[in-house]
């Protein structure tokens, strides 16, 4: 094994790229869960975003159009979830699972025509001379726009939840929907908007996998990224900036195990590739074992449907 082949600066740069899909999806899911809705369909919306983004980007020969289409596709799929859980009051856990199962099937159906096709490349953002700074230039200034966008979205969500009236209402709906309803807020409408945002973010994250990370289409391309995103929301104890931390941690593990595979580590490839999932479980255990933190921060109405009976 040749560890010197791994360049730390390149490693950090690539972990930032690897973290983007989970970060986007987790940020979206955080907003959804803050509104009191548990959408387990992240994996399904991500993979639909992946196939949509790729297909549209190939047809339009533009990655930007692809990303926009992916966000719209993810939101469209989440609309089904919103309709079932908010209007028809279906069980959120079951509906989320249905979304994932349906998304996996439909994506592979749409993706059939696109196997082996390369999407148009997503250009890097040009920072001029900043790019040439040793180490720092590699880490910070040689990425495509989505990497920066994902961090900006976290900042925006943080500011929205913390400083604005809209954020306060969203949290109120998630903490106690009966009280929010009594105050005159439209619980279902607010939740619908949150779900749509979550869908769009998951779609965007999925498109990043098929347009930048891989970049091509294969069945099951997201490989559990949506579930890891759900776990990261718990890891982050529903705080936006911790999502950044969590996503970078998991991006780091993913990139590191890929690098170890390439460097010819003695550990068999299969054991390296299961490591991100095992570490996700481990982190989940550590977070939930701490009785106070996880329990206090989870939105109180998480996963409960609201029905205005009186």
């Amino acid at each position: 094994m040749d560890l010197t082949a791994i360049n730390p600066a390149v490693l950090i740069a690539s972990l930032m790229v690897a973290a983007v899909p989970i970060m986007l999806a987790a940020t979206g899911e955080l907003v959804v869960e803050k509104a009191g809705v548990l959408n387990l369909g992240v994996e399904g919306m991500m993979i639909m975003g992946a196939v949509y983004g790729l297909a549209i980007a190939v047809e339009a020969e533009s990655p930007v159009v692809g990303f926009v289409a992916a966000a719209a596709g993810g939101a469209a799929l989440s609309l089904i979830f919103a309709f079932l859980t908010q209007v028809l009051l279906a069980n959120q856990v079951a509906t989320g699972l249905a979304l994932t199962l349906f998304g996996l099937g439909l994506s592979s159906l749409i993706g059939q025509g696109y196997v082996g096709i390369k999407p148009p490349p997503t250009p890097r953002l040009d920072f001029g001379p900043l790019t040439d700074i040793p180490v720092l230039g590699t880490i910070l200034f040689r990425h495509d726009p989505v990497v920066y966008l994902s961090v900006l979205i976290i900042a925006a969500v943080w500011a929205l939840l913390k400083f604005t009236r809209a954020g306060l209402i969203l949290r109120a709906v998630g903490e106690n929907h009966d009280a929010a309803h009594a105050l005159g807020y439209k619980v279902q409408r607010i939740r619908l908007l949150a779900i749509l945002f979550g869908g769009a973010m998951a779609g965007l994250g999925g498109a990043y996998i098929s347009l930048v990370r891989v970049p091509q289409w294969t069945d099951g391309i997201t490989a559990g990224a949506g579930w890891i995103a759900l776990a990261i929301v718990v890891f982050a104890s529903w705080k936006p900036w911790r999502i950044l931390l969590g996503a970078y941690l998991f991006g780091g593990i993913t990139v590191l195990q890929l690098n170890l595979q390439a460097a010819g580590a003695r550990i068999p490839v299969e054991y390296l590739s299961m490591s991100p999932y095992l570490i996700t479980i481990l982190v989940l255990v550590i977070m939930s074992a701490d009785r106070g933190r996880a329990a206090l921060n989870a939105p109180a109405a998480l996963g409960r449907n609201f029905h205005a009976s009186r």
Partner: protein
Amino acid sequence: MFILEKRPTPSRFWMAATPVLAVILTMIAGGLMFAILGKDPFEAIRTIFWDPLFDPQFASYSRPQLLVKAGPLILIAIGLSLGFRAGIWNIGAEGQYIMGAIFGAAAGLAFYPSENRLIFPLMVAAGAFGGWVWAMIPAILRTRFRTNEILVSLLLVYVAQSLLASMALGALRSPEGGGFPGSRNLSQWATSANPELIGGTGMHWGVVAAFIAVIASYILLQRHILGFQIRLAGEAPRAARFAGVNPNRLVVLCMGISGALAGLAGLFEVTGPAGQISIDFNSGYGFTAIIVAFLGRLNPIGILLAGLLMALTYIGGELAQFMLGLPSAAIQAFQGMLLFFLLAVDMLGNYRIRLGFGRAA
């Protein structure tokens, strides 16, 4: 405007009618999807639901397949339904299914080429144990550390898939396989084979186990105190607490039963229809079983029927793939759609739709 009004008790009529309604709605929506794909919707629906059973040319092959596919689905879904009833979400049955196959196959292959008749029962026990162990991980983590069992059991599916690949390429690879991945063929080794018990029916030990599980779970839910506790914990968790139901015990029991049953399904599959441990041994039964459990309304008899119906869509899907060139993924989307429609019409059982104006104040 329509207003939903909660029923005092769920409507018995709609509880039975909604699955049928969901299947009909799915056929309509699926027909639309097939039409978009450029296939004749009526022909596609007929090929999926009618031809496998009644077409003179294909029925002789397809009919036995019905039980072969329904067996593992029912076996897994019965286990899952117990947990789902109690609000315990084991969605990692796919992983438990894989682990059951690995444990069972390993236990048998350790004695290759012995012809001792005790080996098959040992493999069955090892398969159930494998699934049970894999399900105990999320169960113990939930009872000890309150870790979310949905995420843990699901993430363990990916771990099990990696383990499966490593077993097929390494420890369990057939020494006579010429270096190709995959274990020895268990269905061709008389000691470990899980053959068709009655010729032409597709009935193998896994199907027998599925029928036993249906009956056992029916008795458990209707006649046993544990079944009552499971239902109570799901419908009124607070009341269950006061009635002295130990939630942790229920988690361990429900996860354990569903894991063991999924493991059994994997073992019967690897010794019978699949024949060997290979990289792509698992075919999504663990996930489809979730749909089966809901379609059967978490009721043992319902699950039996739902399992048969879902098996039919698998076989019909293969037939449609062969006859009409319908992509195999279309069937997967079709099955997902079924769950959507099921959840959508579910509301009819618990709510009454009233015509009305304005919103509830």
